[in-house]
């Protein structure tokens, strides 16, 4: 375990050094994420000019939800996104070989090798937006509930990564994963809206098999509602199920990998 932590810090150090070599790009990416944050806040601000409640949540509560999904997105952009972008390319070129022969877990190396330094700046900003939104709630929130929320958001980000990786694993058999990848990014819209607006079987699907409602919306509901233990169990069980599913598919996919001719 200590070896992995030390290795991860080496990844971070190396990635930060690399990011600073392309300074203009580094700042462009910070502004890009800022535009994303501004657009999402403005979107809900405009909606609330015409209604007092949306899916049962007031404007102040909705801002907490917005803060939650911005934190999940920023965390994913910082830790996983760059790595997953390269993932299908490595498989198609046969460059996965270099990861398989290393004396560490290939999944660990492939998922965490590249740390996005610019997104770390955005993660701080997303966390500030969440803190501002929580401060704007009419009722005070206890420290314990905030810590629990942060842990649930980390789980949410992990879930985001696992679902995305599952859509990329077909790269072992297909020439291009553009289709499943586009499907994933289209479905991200479901994460950016509170699960409380959906109803019927679509809501059930979003809270289980396609867990886009679990990533940020359920953690927000935990903080805004009754701080239900049931929600913690639900989020954790979905995460566990996807983790097992990912491990199963990863092993199955590796067995089909035939190097450069893949």
């Amino acid at each position: 375990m200590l070896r992995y932590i030390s290795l991860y810090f080496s990844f971070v150090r190396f990635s930060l050094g690399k990011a600073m070599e392309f300074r203009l790009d580094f700042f462009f990416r910070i502004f890009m994420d800022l535009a994303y944050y501004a657009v999402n806040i403005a979107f809900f601000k405009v909606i609330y000019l015409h209604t007092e409640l949306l899916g049962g949540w007031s404007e102040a509560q909705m801002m907490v939800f917005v803060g939650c999904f911005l934190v999940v997105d920023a965390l994913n952009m910082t830790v996983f996104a760059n790595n997953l972008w390269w993932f299908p390319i490595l498989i198609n070129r046969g460059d996965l070989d270099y990861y398989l022969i290393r004396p560490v877990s290939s999944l660990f190396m492939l998922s965490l090798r590249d740390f996005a330094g610019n997104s770390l700046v955005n993660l701080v900003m997303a966390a500030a937006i969440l803190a501002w939104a929580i401060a704007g709630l009419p009722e005070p929130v206890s420290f314990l509930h905030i810590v629990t929320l942060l842990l649930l958001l980390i789980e949410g980000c992990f879930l985001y990564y696992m679902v995305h990786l599952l859509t990329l694993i077909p790269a072992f058999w297909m020439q291009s994963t553009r289709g499943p990848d586009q499907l994933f990014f289209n479905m991200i819209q479901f994460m950016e809206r509170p699960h409380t607006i959906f109803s019927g079987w679509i809501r059930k699907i979003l809270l289980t098999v396609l867990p886009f409602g679990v990533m940020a919306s359920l953690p927000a509901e935990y903080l805004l509602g009754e701080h239900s233990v049931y929600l913690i169990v639900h989020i954790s069980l979905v995460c566990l199920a996807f983790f097992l599913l990912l491990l199963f598919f990863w092993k199955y996919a590796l067995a089909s990998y035939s190097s450069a001719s893949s």
Partner: protein
Amino acid sequence: MIKKFEPNPRYLWSVFTLELRKLMSYRVDFWTSTLLSVLCQIVVAFFLWKAVFLQIQGDSIHGFTFSSIVLYYLFMPLSNKLVRGPEMSFIASEIYDGSLNRYLIFPVSYFAYKLASHLAYSFVSLFQALLLTILYITVIGWPSEVPFHSSSLLFSLGAVVCSIFLYYTLSGAIEQIAFWADNVWSLLVMQRFVLNLLGGALIPLAFFPTWAQELLRYTPFPYMVAFPVRCLMGQVGLQEWALSILILCLWSAVATVLWFWLWRKGSYQYAGVGI
């Protein structure tokens, strides 16, 4: 040597048909990406606006009923695909890796070549938009409160043609920043975020505060996104249409001048070996 803009119809037609053939060779990709994007957007919009309409008194907000707003979110991704074409012309990546070189020996200018490729993509998107609209009208029906006249269709087609040119020149100008910077894809993503909000793709502009609507009228954003859809839904009269087209043409002229200015300046920077 960098060629000047010399539109030779024969060469441009060749580029257009070549691009069409390329698009048709990845049919499944092309169709699934459109279908999935429209489907996800319409499902999210359906539930979001259902939740909003449950809260308000009355049947409409700023002239939109629930069915007309769902129709708006059907047309929006289709219109976006038509106007934005392949989203980017890959100018930035060609500058970055030096593959811009091969265009310099083509018997057609780079501006015209990329415009013809963009138009080919838009042409296929128009075909998709027609099919999906017919499918929607057959299954769900056209909302009775949304007027449909042949003039709406003509206004919309005129708006689309002008919007395509404005989008092409403006995003092309942004891509040319790659002559000086290593990687500019983040600028294009930022442009998309801003266009989606200020152009009316995320929420119809009628829902914005009046001061914001007034301000946005003089910016290029609404004309590249919401304007063609508003025309199709009969929300734009002749006078407003003519004024909007005038503003669109003025912005297109500014963007074209910018495109060529950056091209001239950038070509002195370009080493032709990739970065």
